[in-house]
């Protein structure tokens, strides 16, 4: 399945890279071109996620699971691919559910741009690691080293950090629910009057 995976990944790579450009551009500009590009963003993201899922599935068939998960490069490729797919699916969800409100205000834009940069970075790492696995290493992996990531070393987190992440994962929606209900209560009070 290696060749088919290699062919298929061109689609999400191209679409998400363009999407990241649009997200960053839109995050910095309210001009007509930025708005026009934003109108096709959802389409790009949706096709990117769809082809990304297919690429991911094909990638899982290149090697037997045990083989892929035994090599640090394979593990890193898989974790980066998983996070890329998740990140871009998240951007798609956010843009679809919230609509153009994602571009309102500095913080909203910062979140979108941050997710776009994160997705692009993970996509670049995924592609680089894929190149390594197929015997075509790129110097991009050397750029990751100053950030503390040796691509030949499996990316994993110590248990205590996983616990911290678990707390954050639970705390974030809890915080959002509390804040949303608080807002609803305030609106109700305003509507009820003094």
């Amino acid at each position, binding site marked *: 399945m290696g060749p088919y995976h290699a062919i298929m990944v061109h689609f999400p790579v191209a679409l998400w890279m363009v999407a990241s450009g649009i997200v960053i551009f839109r995050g910095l500009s309210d001009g007509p071109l930025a708005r026009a590009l934003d109108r096709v963003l959802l389409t790009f993201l949706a096709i990117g996620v769809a082809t990304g899922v297919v690429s991911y599935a094909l990638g899982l068939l290149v090697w037997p699971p045990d*083989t892929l998960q035994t090599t640090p490069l394979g593990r890193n490729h898989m974790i980066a691919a998983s996070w890329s797919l998740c990140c871009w699916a*998240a951007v798609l969800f956010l843009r679809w559910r919230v609509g153009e409100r994602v571009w309102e205000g500095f913080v909203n834009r910062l979140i979108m741009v941050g997710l776009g940069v994160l997705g692009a970075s993970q996509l670049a790492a995924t592609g680089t690691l894929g190149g390594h696995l197929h*015997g075509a290493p790129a110097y991009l992996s050397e750029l990751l080293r100053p950030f503390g990531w040796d691509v030949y070393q499996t990316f994993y987190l110590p248990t205590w*950090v996983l616990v911290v*992440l678990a707390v954050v994962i639970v705390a974030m929606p809890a915080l959002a629910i509390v804040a949303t209900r608080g807002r609803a209560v305030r609106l109700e009070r305003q509507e009820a009057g003094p």
Partner: protein
Amino acid sequence: MLRRHTAVLVLAGLFAAAMLLSLFTHSTGVVHNDPARNIWIPPELTMPVKLQVAYNDQRIFFHYRWPAREPHVFTDLLRYSHGKWQRQLRTPVGSDPDGIYEDRLAMMVDDGSVPEFQRYGGYITVGANMRDFTGSGPDAAHRRKYLPATRRDPNDWYSIVDKATLDAQRRAGYFLDLWHWRAHLSNPLGRSDDQHIAWYRLYDSGEPLFVSNWDADGGQPRWMFDPDRAGVRALRWEDVSGGHGDIKGPYYLAAAAAVPFDAAHEWREGDVIPGQVLREPSGSRDEIRVQGQGRWADGYWDVTLVRALDTGHPLEDKVLRDQGVYTIALSVHRDARASRWHYVSLPLQLGLGRQAELMATRFNGDTPDWNRVDARELTLFYPGQVSWKHLSSARHAGSKYIAKGVPVKYRHKETQLAQYGVEIEFDREIRRQWALSLIAGVLLVASFVFSVSLLLGHRED
């Protein structure tokens, strides 16, 4: 009450903090020394060795220079403790805490008769379940290096082919010559031990360089230092343990300078006598000499080994010829480590007057001028517990390339292999932690985006 704007900021901060925490703490918390599982990871995963090679009509010279914080020149000691003599022979897991294990340098040599060696070096000699591997069991001491074709099943140490086949393989050159310089057991006599690897790691024929000084029946040494010549009957434990830069004093027991052990002498707690007596070797065992002195100074060992191009023992030594291309691979033991806790090189092509990765310099005269000989800096790496069985199995993503004969150097660098060597020792733990990290990352992004979407509201609100 928490404002929406503030809540979004807090979420973004939490998400960013979680990402940064992950980036700064990744790949930690799993790898640790675990002597109970025969796991000990060296602090430095790679080390350099400078290599120069020169030859004339009769002999070939290898000059090695490698860093070692301090020389370790003792091994296998007999120690007087609690009123009796005890043998201090042990294979430490990692560095010996007392510094009692000699520094060593070994070099495998092949003339092309072992084609897998050209491509994969020493990896081909590491079968499954070798001694000192995790879970190898207490009966693994004899499971040492061998060549794959000496077994009916290359992954089964005990499936040795019949003697006629082994003999035929030997005549066909299917063995690796093994030069083995030892800081205690060979260097003092100006020799390197001479071995070869075929169905086992074998000594060359001839009288050995050393014989045991331990009288197991009597529970005491057989020989001791001659006090008239050495000034002492024994060494002191406090002088030999810990590694020492000064090796000018007596540190080995040569047969010519030893006298029979005097059991009647009033021995003191901490007296130490070497457990091996060095003596002049003979035959094929006596072919590799140290040119000058193998010596440690200023944090480096400098050793030059010299051997006849053709020793006259073609079934134990590889014959080297002008215009020939050969494959060598080095290993170094330092910091009082033994067994598999060494550094190894990838295979290196050596050309005698022919283009190769390293060209030996031809010279006239008795000794080479090393200032005129090309030097090559090799990177040696800690190989971990990577066996030929693993490499040629479906679990290794590169096994299909091995099946096609693609050399290890085409796909791997030394630093990479060192990292892989460490990770495979913790494969189960790392894989579990990696899987949890993958899931945690996915959930973190999903949680963040879901939370933000809650706060920002639906587009139709």
